[in-house]
């Protein structure tokens, strides 16, 4: 009895499946076209999305990211300060006025500073300059 029921059920299942398959095969032309058009539309969407997808832009974004890192490294505020200081130092050395150098040398040398603050030194230098002026006139 049970085997007979199972056989009957299997037969019914097969018949139902065959009918459902046939119903798909016999879909009218309009419906088939509508389904094909829906499929095409969905796949076009995929194409559009794929170009916006990160995967597609991975090499380009990798390059852009590296470039950004390089720029940040080179123009980092600390690095920038060092570089500016270096440039400033170079400029100071090359364009510094002779008077400033003399003053700096005087201030950094204790012996010269002592000489510069001695009033006799100025008396002596006046005499020397006066003598030089006479000699030059001759």
């Amino acid at each position: 009895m049970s085997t007979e029921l199972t056989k009957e059920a299997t037969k019914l299942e097969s018949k139902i499946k065959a009918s459902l398959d046939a119903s798909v095969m016999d879909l009218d032309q309009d419906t088939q076209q509508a389904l094909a058009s829906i499929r095409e539309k969905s796949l076009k969407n995929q194409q559009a999305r794929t170009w916006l997808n990160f995967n597609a832009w991975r090499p380009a974004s990798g390059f852009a990211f590296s470039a950004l890192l390089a720029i940040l490294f080179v123009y980092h505020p600390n690095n920038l300060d060092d570089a500016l200081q270096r440039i400033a130092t170079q400029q100071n050395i090359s364009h510094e006025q002779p008077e400033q150098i003399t003053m700096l040398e005087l201030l950094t040398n204790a012996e010269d500073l002592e000489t510069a603050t001695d009033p006799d030194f100025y008396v002596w230098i006046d005499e020397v300059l006066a003598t030089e002026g006479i000699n030059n006139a001759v």
Partner: protein
Amino acid sequence: MPMERDFNEQYISMNHFLADVEGRAFRMAQIATGNRDDALEIVQDTMMKLVQKYSHHQATEWKALFYSILNTRILDWHRRQSVRNRFRSWLNWNDGEDEAIEDVLAQHPDETNHSPDAKLQDSQFMASLNTALSALPLRQQQVFLLRIWEGMDINETAAIMHCSASSVKTHYARALEKLREKLEDHQ
């Protein structure tokens, strides 16, 4: 370019997959909704979502994902219909749509080479099957179609339907029993 080749391969695979399932998906949606346009809309939503969200998944996973989305869409449609029907009955408004539910199987032109009698029998069986399937509760209908038509096993069906394997067995047995009762004249 490997990336472009990958994309083309994926595009072709997806196209083949969708072409293979679209007819059955449409019929499932049509049986569930009783309406051609709603069925097409459900299939469109399903395809769009699969392509947009899951095309990067393995092709072997597409079938389960596709039917999972399809069943969810059908369920959503039924929920919306149920709300609409509630409003309609509240307003006592009938625009004749109920009568316009298509007997879709009866519309199909039969182009097989069967004898006129066999054709008539097939056509009658199809019409009765359509009516019987449409009359099944939604869960039973979905389980039955996935199992019998898509050939999915109990566990796969349970995963798609988000229910237990024992529920799948119960739904299937009940659906088969009801169909047997309604189609016994054709056996």
